[in-house]
């Protein structure tokens, strides 16, 4: 790991300012992704701007939506009693991220900003039609996640919260990579308040994506059997030693059905 400057601002505006000044700065939330990459020499930022000084943590359940502050650790999302009532599938998702250490350091803001193709949260954001609040604006999830490890965020832009509309019901089924426990295939299925259905898949492709065929079938009838015979083509899916593209394609359907069965 190389040396770096360490800054821990207390205000969002100061954090953005510090980033502007830095030669090659990086925001840090839980550090669960950033620090391992620095240790491996894959990233060597000149400045670390630690966002934990912003103290923006908490889950707030409103009448139509739930707003989770960016600095909220996964364990707090998983453990929120209010969230378990409002969007149980989202609480369950958070409880299945990594291991207890990771869940007590990693944050929702860090996770969505990082947009790891194997991360869990992006699937919930996309399926629930979340809005990402940043220091500068509000962005729909459909516009926010732009590809593998890439988002619509500008260099100095900070994720401040994620707002999830409360659905009629939703469910998440994850098939973890057996070694890393990241999602090898994760499917989030949501029936939104207006009755429309969204299905988002993570882990399987270059980034999180929706499956229109499944959404159409489930809109007609929200039941696992509606997905019989519907499979995502393996052509553009990830393939590695843990799972071929064909296996991932197969798992998407299996996990989608399980997500529907689990939907509450």
């Amino acid at each position, binding site marked *: *790991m190389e040396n770096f400057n360490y800054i821990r601002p207390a205000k969002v505006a100061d954090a953005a300012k510090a980033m502007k000044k830095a030669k090659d700065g990086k925001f840090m939330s839980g550090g669960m992704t950033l620090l391992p990459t620095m240790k*491996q020499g894959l990233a060597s930022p000149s400045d670390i701007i630690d966002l934990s000084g912003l103290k923006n943590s908490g889950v707030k359940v409103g009448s139509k939506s739930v707003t989770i502050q960016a600095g909220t650790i996964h364990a707090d999302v998983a453990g929120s009693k209010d969230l378990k009532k409002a969007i149980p599938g989202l609480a369950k998702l958070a409880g299945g991220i990594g291991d207890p250490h990771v869940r007590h350091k990693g944050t929702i803001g860090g996770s969505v900003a990082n947009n790891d193709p194997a991360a869990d949260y992006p699937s919930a954001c996309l399926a629930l039609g979340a809005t990402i609040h940043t220091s500068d604006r509000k962005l729909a999830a459909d516009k926010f996640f732009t590809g593998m490890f890439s988002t619509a965020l500008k260099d100095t832009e900070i994720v401040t919260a994620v707002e999830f509309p409360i659905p009629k019901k939703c469910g998440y089924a994850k*098939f973890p990579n*057996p*070694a*890393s426990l990241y999602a090898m295939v994760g499917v989030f299925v949501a029936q939104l308040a207006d009755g429309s259905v969204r299905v988002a898949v993570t882990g399987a492709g270059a980034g999180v994506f929706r499956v229109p065929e499944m959404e159409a079938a489930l809109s007609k009838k929200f039941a696992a059997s509606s997905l019989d015979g519907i499979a995502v083509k393996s052509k553009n899916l990830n393939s590695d*030693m*843990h*799972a*071929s593209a064909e*296996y991932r394609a*197969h*798992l998407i359907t*299996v996990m989608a059905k399980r997500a529907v069965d689990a939907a509450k």
Partner: protein
Amino acid sequence: MSETGTGIGARVKRKEDQRFITGKGNYTDDINLPKQTYAYFVRSPHAHATIKSINTAKAKKMPGVVGVFTGEDVANDKLGGLICGWMIHSKDGSPMKAGPHPVLAQGKVRYVGDHVALVVAETKELAKAAAAAVSVTYAVLPHVVDVADAMKAKAPVHDVAPDNRVFNWSIGDEAATDAAFKNAAHVTKIDLVNNRLIPNAMEPRAAIGSYDTGTESYTLYTTSQNPHVARLVISAFHGLAPEHKLRVIAPDVGGGFGSKIFIYAEEVACVWASKHIGGRPIKWTAERSESFLADAHGRDHVTHAELATDANGIITGFKVHTKAAMGAYLSTFASCVPTYLYATLLSGQYAIPNIYAEVDAIYTNTAPVDAYRGAGRPEATYVVERIVETAARELKIDPAEFRRKNFVTAFPHQTPVIMCYDAGDYAAALDKALEMSEYSSFGERKSAAAKKGKLRGIGLSAYIEACGIAPSAAIGSLGAGVGLWESAEVRVNPVGTVEILTGSHSHGQGHETTFAQLVSDRLGVDINNVSIVHGDTDKVQFGMGTYGSRSGAVGMTAISKALDKIEAKAKKVAAAVMEASADDVEFKNGTFTVKGTDKKMAFGEVALSAYVAHKFNSAEIEPGLKEGAFHDPSNFVFPAGVHICEVEIDADTGVTEVVSYTAVDDFGNIINPMIVEGQVHGGIVQGIGQALAEGCVYDKDSGQLLTGSYMDYQMPRAADVPNFKLAFTCTPCPSNPLGMKGCGEAGAIASPAAVMNAVTDALGLRDVAMPATPQTVWKAMQPMKKAAE
């Protein structure tokens, strides 16, 4: 024997654990010496390449750099290369082809991670930064990463072995075995791969090497399972210094599983280079990714086996051909693992009249392969127990009964492959395991699982292993470069407390507890008044270390022998003090009494008398109470047992869950059942890991290690295993006075076959490759699914 108290057979809590679990252990990396420097190794990024040039000029000028060393420096200093300490001869009589293994690469690199240069600096970070500035020019050569391709490789790993074959060794009577196959009623054939594993001890390897310019002697702190062997090799073969000028200390060591037996380049380089930087100590602690790359790996066999049976289902012959990967260099004991530690166990628990096995040991451009928990015996058990199960299925005989029919029942039993089993009751373990696992009602559980969409399978593994290594003369005749006796010294202090100096080494086994239990049992001394000293060549007499489940059967027997001498001497002292004849003195529960009188002395009083030496004639009885012993076993010991595993496979995803696991083991007499259970638990988990999770993968095209971190190498987790059902049977070992066998490796030896027999049973397939990961199982199921459609 009682499970309470502190003597033999008691469930004494581990004395060392308080220290370990509160972070007060003293591991190599915890030690810091004055003026210490830090090492970082430049490693090969290529699987196979010629080194065209190494330029260290820039690195030497980097901040904080104290020294940069390459193969040229090693050669100039005439520092000897790494050795393989067991000579194997091929079938044709030729000696194994050991290629050179310099401490820092000379001319060529042979695997990704091969040690090329050593950079020493004021801090680890500075050393690492300077290492990045060492510029090495390589000319890349073709490489091979698996044994299947290795014998037709374009560029041999070592010139001495043009077809990459280190040796072609055989055991058993080929003609007699062929004849048995001619007359067989049925022949079962199987092809198996025993997957390569990466050891993953919790503590990575580490070393601090230092040179004392005054006494002209070296000290090496290192993560070793056998510091004396390390000193011997570094002295005699590397030629660093004579043994009395080299001290090797292995302090607390956090797990080894075999991987810390070996003498590695990094540790030798650190202690050697210290002299070249004015004697400043050099510390090196492997990063986890270096452990993945450069610790000796385990297993990696490809085997074809055939089993002949007669019309009554009795095994008449067994033929095995194994290709065993050695990696890019022959590690310290690499050659004996796929030969004498493997093929000598191919008789399993069965009376097989004819066995013939051939082993090709093969170089590949990968990390060296050497002993890993079980070393050869898991590989043997895997072949035997998979083919026996397969034969039973083919013959439509219940696998448990097929085994029973073929069990060895009379002892001693001479197998056709060297080993002579001394004692056992294999049917007793089988009966107990069948009962505990509720074997007879398995069908009900299978139907219940099917209703949930799960495929349930059951698998047995009736393993035997040979440990407590080993009779020195016997292994010497087979090519071993060392003897495998063990030593002990018992020092009774004047106040009656006891120090045990042992040549074995604890790195997780709990010797501080079990050895103290033996002393407490024999001398009646409080267990807290016994200390165990090990792991320092300046403190402890020569000893052979810990591996091959030898510290009980061999190490404790040496202690026991020394305790016999202590008792005899103490009786003489007691007799003199109590004015009786030594023959009339009895010793029980820590008290010396004189037959027919009420005279008595406590052990502590006798110890004090021995040291003050007031009450006896020092010309007849020497003062003091200290005795030593060396114990050379007369045979291996033969733990055996039956493990039964049940799995459920999710037909939709291919995920295998171990839902039930029963282990019945015969370890002879047991010193501490709690510690033994812990060893069994750990071993089973490692075996489940091998069967379902762990698989080291090198990329065929690039030669890179793909499973170089926990992101891709799956270790078993607590949640992956069920609660184990354990029990012991006992046939005391006749070859040592304590009647002990060994328990450290049995779990890892037995379990892969039990798990894979269950997996293949669930799927109705002959074989599924280990590790049976979800993807592997899912792929294996596809033809069945297609057929069903």
